[in-house]
């Protein structure tokens, strides 16, 4: 009953579709929360890119005499134990979070897409084997897999990107494989097969483009998790481990001891993580809704 009414409404507003992405973009623009998310992300990216311009101080050089000062006009977010300007550190921290988070998700996407495409495209024994491997990785819950990989690879930004990326790869692989399996018997795929298109071409040109949307949504949401996980690794002492780098998670660990005397040292980096994660979560949800208009909240 309800479905019929919506169907009528849809038909009564004829408007030529301008392709999946254009339509999605139009719907996204009308999605208030997603726009708010985009603003959060824009602040985050601007802060990261313009850090050298905005920051008044070097994030790595402090003055011990002016340590642990509360927020003031000179230091809007105060200074940390070593007298370094917290605002500059949060800004430069955005660079680390952004690069490490984005690269980690890209690493996960790269591994996940290859595994998922081979599994979903080949099927049979290859699929079964690859899926057992993802099962093994998925058996280690959440951030624990990334923790284990960092413990193994050692400290450093590259290691963190790899660790977080690998821990996301099985999720992407599963998702892509699922969409590909559903597409195997789709009419346009059967049609391509029947005119003798080679298998790899069907996979790359016909099936993959149609299986990408859920992957893009998941990747956007994964950016939020990646920023939180990267900060989590830093917090646990598995961060870049480089005193020249301001990383949000490590900043929190350093400040935790002064919760009583300098709570702002927890508040500002914490708020930075939350705002960027909120941004990517809202954008991801918005993308999901605009790419799949059938889905209602």
């Amino acid at each position: 009953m309800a479905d019929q009414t919506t169907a009528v409404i849809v038909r009564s507003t004829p408007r030529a579709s301008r392709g999946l992405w254009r339509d999605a973009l139009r719907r996204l623009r009308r999605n208030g929360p997603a726009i708010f998310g985009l603003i959060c992300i824009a602040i985050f990216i601007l802060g990261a890119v313009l850090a050298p311009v905005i920051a008044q101080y070097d994030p790595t050089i402090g003055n011990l005499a002016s340590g642990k000062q509360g927020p003031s006009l000179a230091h809007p977010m105060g200074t940390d134990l070593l007298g370094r300007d917290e605002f500059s550190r949060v800004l430069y921290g955005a660079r680390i979070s952004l690069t490490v988070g984005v690269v980690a998700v890209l690493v996960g996407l790269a591994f996940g897409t290859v595994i998922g495409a081979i599994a979903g495209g080949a099927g049979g024994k290859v699929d079964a084997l690859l899926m057992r491997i993802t099962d093994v990785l998925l058996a280690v819950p959440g951030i624990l897999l990334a923790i284990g990989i960092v413990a193994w690879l050692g400290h450093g930004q590259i290691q963190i990107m790899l660790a977080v990326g690998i821990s996301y790869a099985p999720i992407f692989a599963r998702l892509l494989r699922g969409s590909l399996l559903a597409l195997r018997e789709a009419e346009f795929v059967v049609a391509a097969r029947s005119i003798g298109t080679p298998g790899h071409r069907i996979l790359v040109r016909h099936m993959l483009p149609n299986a990408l949307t859920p992957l893009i949504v998941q990747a956007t949401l994964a950016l939020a998790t990646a920023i939180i996980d990267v900060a989590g690794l830093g917090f646990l002492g598995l961060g870049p481990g480089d005193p020249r780098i301001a990383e949000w998670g490590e900043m929190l660990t350093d400040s935790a001891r002064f919760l009583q005397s300098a709570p702002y040292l927890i508040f500002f980096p914490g708020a930075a993580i939350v705002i960027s994660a909120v941004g990517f979560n809202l954008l991801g949800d918005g993308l999901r809704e605009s790419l799949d208009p059938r889905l209602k909240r």
Partner: protein
Amino acid sequence: MLRYILRRVLGAIPVLFGLSVALFLFLRLLPGDPAEAILGQHATPELIKQIRETLGLDQPLYVQYLDYLGRLLHGDFGASIIDGRPVADSFLVRFPATIELTIGALIFAVGLGIPLGRLAARHPNGWIDGMVTVLSLFGISIPIFVLGYTLVFVFAVQLHWLPALGQIDPRLGVTPVTHFAIIDALLTGRVPAIVDSFAHLILPSIALGSIPLAIVTRITRASVIEVSNEDYVRTARAKGLTERRVNDRHIMRNAWLPVTTVIGLQVGGLLAGAVLTETVFTWNGVGSWVVTAIQNHDYIVVQSLILIFATIFLTVNLLVDIGYAFLNPRIRYG
């Protein structure tokens, strides 16, 4: 039903097997000589010799693995290189604290998430729904350690309402018997000890339970809204049943299914989250042990704990799936 259970149990075995191979190789592929890499800065000639013997490093790789697997199956995970205690022994002392924390977080998430989800679903897109949506957005966007320190700052440092760290005030002199702080406190029969053990559990449970709370709320809301639009709910209302009866017998009974599955799926996240939560609240459980083990390069402990966490995670997922199949015959015969 039995066949379904059997199939699922058999399906979990290759996964654990694969993981044990991966973790076995993890220790062997550490750079340099495995014994020296495992020992790191703690290496002494005697210890290296000892590790070489327990690992059987002079044997071929597959013999080493079979040896490792055999010991695993006997519950022998090896010993910590820091204090020399068998991993299994320390695990049994520390695991109760993690169980307490996880149960506390689950009670918080489910106890608050289901009513919130139902409340939000009553008037979809109304102002209550909006507030619940914002709350659950924050739940998944705020890292456990940020929320944890915020809670400590507000409720312990500023308001002095709740204790910040540990499981029980050591001045109360509760002797650990079961290593469950609350049960040990109950065993003393002293009211202050019991109250103290519960008070210590509140903040960590909220910190750890924030993500599951957000997820349980979202799923409950979506599920209740979906079921509320079903024909049989309209029929139930049309035939004049009271709203309460429609809610309890028609909506919730069917809305429960996805909610129970999602609750079960949270256990993995809770175990991983315990690593962060226990570090914030200096909770003496398995999670904080993972962190100290990594900081100390105590690789045998790290390896064993990852395997144990995965086993628990798989077991819980298995129980959830079986429970789900039990509740929903369509799965069983599907």
